[in-house]
């Protein structure tokens, strides 16, 4: 009887652990715009751009212009999104990665990053 009890406890614990793992596996899909922008394998914006108004945007690269006052610089948000999607349309010699055209980020991810950058 006691053994059965122990077994049941173990099963219950196992179930909790499994659920926990499943949740953890889903979590990365819920990255915020900022997280996508900062992630080295995703946007990696800081490799080239400073974000002077973001305190934890540490040791940024200097290849592109700093991302600041973006809503003033891009009154039309769609233009900012288009720039992230493929900057070589506006400037063929731009070093910037065509995040949308080359599928580096998904359309949904680009939406989130656009929102984040627009707010800088």
């Amino acid at each position, binding site marked *: 009887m006691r053994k059965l009890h122990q077994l049941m406890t173990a099963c219950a614990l196992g179930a909790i652990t499994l659920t926990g793992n499943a949740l953890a596996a889903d979590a990365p899909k819920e990255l915020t715009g900022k997280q996508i922008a900062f992630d080295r394998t995703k946007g990696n914006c*800081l*490799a*080239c751009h400073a974000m002077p108004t973001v305190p934890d945007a540490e*040791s*940024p*690269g*200097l*290849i592109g212009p700093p991302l600041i006052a973006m809503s003033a610089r891009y009154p039309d948000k769609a233009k900012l999104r288009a720039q992230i999607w493929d900057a*070589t349309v506006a400037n063929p*010699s731009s*070093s910037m*990665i*065509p995040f949308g055209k*080359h*599928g*580096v980020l998904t359309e949904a991810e680009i939406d989130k990053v656009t929102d984040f950058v627009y707010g800088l």
Partner: protein
Amino acid sequence: MKQQIIMKLLTGMAGLGMALGVATAHASPEQDKQDLIRYFTSKYPNVKVDDYVYGALAFDPDSKAQYDAIMEFPPFDSQIDAGRKMWETPFKNGKTYASCLPNGGKMIAGTYPMFDEAKGKVVTLEDVVNDCRVANGEAPLKTSDAKTMGALSAYMRSLSDGMIMNIKVQGPKATAAYEEGKKTFFRRTGQLNFACATCHVQNAGTRLRSELLSPVVGQAVHWPVFRGGDTLVTLQNRYTGCFKMIRAVPPAQDSTVMNDLEYFHSAMSNGLPMKASVFRK
């Protein structure tokens, strides 16, 4: 009226043809190098061209000071020593590397890669070492292997320390190989859409996150490098790394694509001294 239009069209086409003719005329390696130097020196008038052999360190006095301190007691000496032992060990037939290389293998590294007319392709210093091995009944070494060819080539290049890089591009076939290498260097590729030139021409001297990007001129004189002090990286290992970082499929090492790239790349350092065995971050 119709004739006039046709005449205009013909004139236009002739003009276009001339423009294309100008565009496809090949600049000489010397001209290409001078154009690059003009680009870099106009952007960074305070950095001496002679210091380009230090790569990104030329743009950052603090990093250069650290480099100088590390180079006083190079942490990679034991690997150069291993290369020296390989170099000095005779083949089974009693001959040595020195016996089958021009000038006993000394002060020759600055002429490689070289266009081999007989083979009709570019050969690297590593290829010549393997030819020497095969001619003496030994198996060729894997050119990308740091422990064997890497260490051996590091010692061999130390025999050419200070030699002025002098890559020759003569004749139509050599020029074609050089042009292929140049195309690979300037062509954007990979998911991230970078060319070698994106970082090492357009953005050289600028920071990519916390890393300074080195200029193409002066890059080819100091390979293999010892990254982090003792990790040997050959030039083509580095090319492979670059291709992977921009999410492109790297061409095979020692392939025509890689060797042509090394040919162009090395010619852009012509006139600069070889710096055999250096530390890099």
